[in-house]
């Protein structure tokens, strides 16, 4: 069954990306219940995907269990080819449109603009799960996952009004950017100071190994040593 759990909470990182919490109440039939979650962005981190069952009836704990979760991401190369085709088609529409009157013009530009911003992260990932129920019942499903999309972030701007040489009034504002293809409406919004880890040193090393001299690689190895990073939640 295809389900679309409501996004209840979204914690955005200042360095881009965030944590999404979704929730849905599901009715279960006796036996195996397979579910497929909709609107999972391809920028989600399959390793962080987590499902928790909240039992409406405490006795259900023995009869209703999570059997399996299946997570996967679409192939990057194929998806990119499709996106490139879409972009090229949009370009052709603009170039070769004969009837480009006022109404058409608006429709065409909206469609073409949407395709020009489209990236791999705007496509859908796969997040399925199977629940085993020994009897019919209801359960609340809580889903959590990280999204590694740098187009969604927040930043602070500060305005300092000097009233005296040594005294001032400070005002802090939070500016949220969401340039992803996913909207989050009526959610409990949280902010955290955190930067998603950069690509691992092994990955970067293997890419650069062929081009850099050995001495340079040794220096780079030192720079790749990880630093501690502790997430700080903002109390608004």
């Amino acid at each position, binding site marked *: 069954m295809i389900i679309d759990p409501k996004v209840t909470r979204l914690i955005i990182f*200042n360095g881009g990306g965030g944590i999404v919490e979704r929730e849905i109440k599901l009715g279960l039939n006796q036996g195996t219940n397979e579910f497929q979650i909709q609107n999972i962005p391809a920028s989600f981190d399959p390793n962080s995907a987590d499902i928790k069952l909240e039992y409406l009836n405490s006795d259900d704990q023995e009869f209703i269990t999570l059997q399996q979760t299946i997570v996967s991401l679409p192939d990057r190369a194929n998806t990119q080819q499709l996106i490139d085709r879409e972009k090229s088609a949009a370009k052709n529409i603009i170039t070769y449109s004969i009837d480009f009157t006022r109404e058409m013009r608006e429709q065409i530009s909206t469609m073409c603009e949407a395709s020009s911003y489209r990236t791999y992260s705007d496509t859908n990932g796969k997040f399925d799960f199977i629940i085993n129920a020994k009897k019919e019942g209801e359960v609340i499903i809580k889903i959590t996952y990280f999204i590694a999309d740098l187009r969604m972030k927040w*930043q*602070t*701007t*500060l*305005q*300092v*009004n*000097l009233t005296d*040489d*040594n*005294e*001032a*009034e*400070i*005002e*802090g*504002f*939070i500016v*949220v950017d969401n340039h992803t293809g996913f909207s989050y409406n009526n959610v409990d919004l949280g902010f955290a*100071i955190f930067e998603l880890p950069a690509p691992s040193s092994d990955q970067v090393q293997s890419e650069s190994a062929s081009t850099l001299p050995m001495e340079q690689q040794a220096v780079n190895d030192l720079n790749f040593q990880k630093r501690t990073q502790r997430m*700080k939640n*903002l*109390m*608004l």
Partner: protein
Amino acid sequence: MNWFKAKCKLTHDRKVSLQYDENTVTSNKLNWEVAIKYVLVKEGEPKEIPPKSPMTFYKAGLPFLFLSTSGTIGNKIISEELIDDDILVDDDIIEIKEGKPEITFEDARDPKEHIEVRTRFDRITRRITIENKLDNEINLVLEFKQTKDVTFIKSDPEPSKIEQPDYKYDLKIPSEEKSRVSFEFQAKIVSRTTKIKPAFIKDSKT
């Protein structure tokens, strides 16, 4: 969206750091830059503000300074470090008293040669002049960091605080006035010359 609004105290942390090596200590003239940081101590509960957040200072309703934060410590919001162009620091040489060189030898790569090492300890006097071109009095910390080549002997005025190898001076400079600090240093000057060993120098008469 609005996050917070609070009153705060503003302080300016101005600092000039001096450090010499055996070459720069004998320069006729050096110029140093004064670093300034704006520190806002906010009233109320602390707020974690990410580093590099843009910050704009307004005076009489008009923006006059654009900078960004470098971090927060509790209720303190600290700006990035900027160079204060309104404070000029000139560093001039006053006197060099050359010491007597001590000559030692080191092995060279070629067995017929050796390296003549001349080491002398010079006494160098320098004067730092700090000019405040602002229309208000400023507080500034002048910090001298001793190195292996250049060591501190004395200064006028005396340092306000000594934390080896740092010598700190808390200076108060009125508007459009100059403040001076004279230093006397000992500098280790080493020169190395590769020479043919005397035993291998051919006598031109033979």
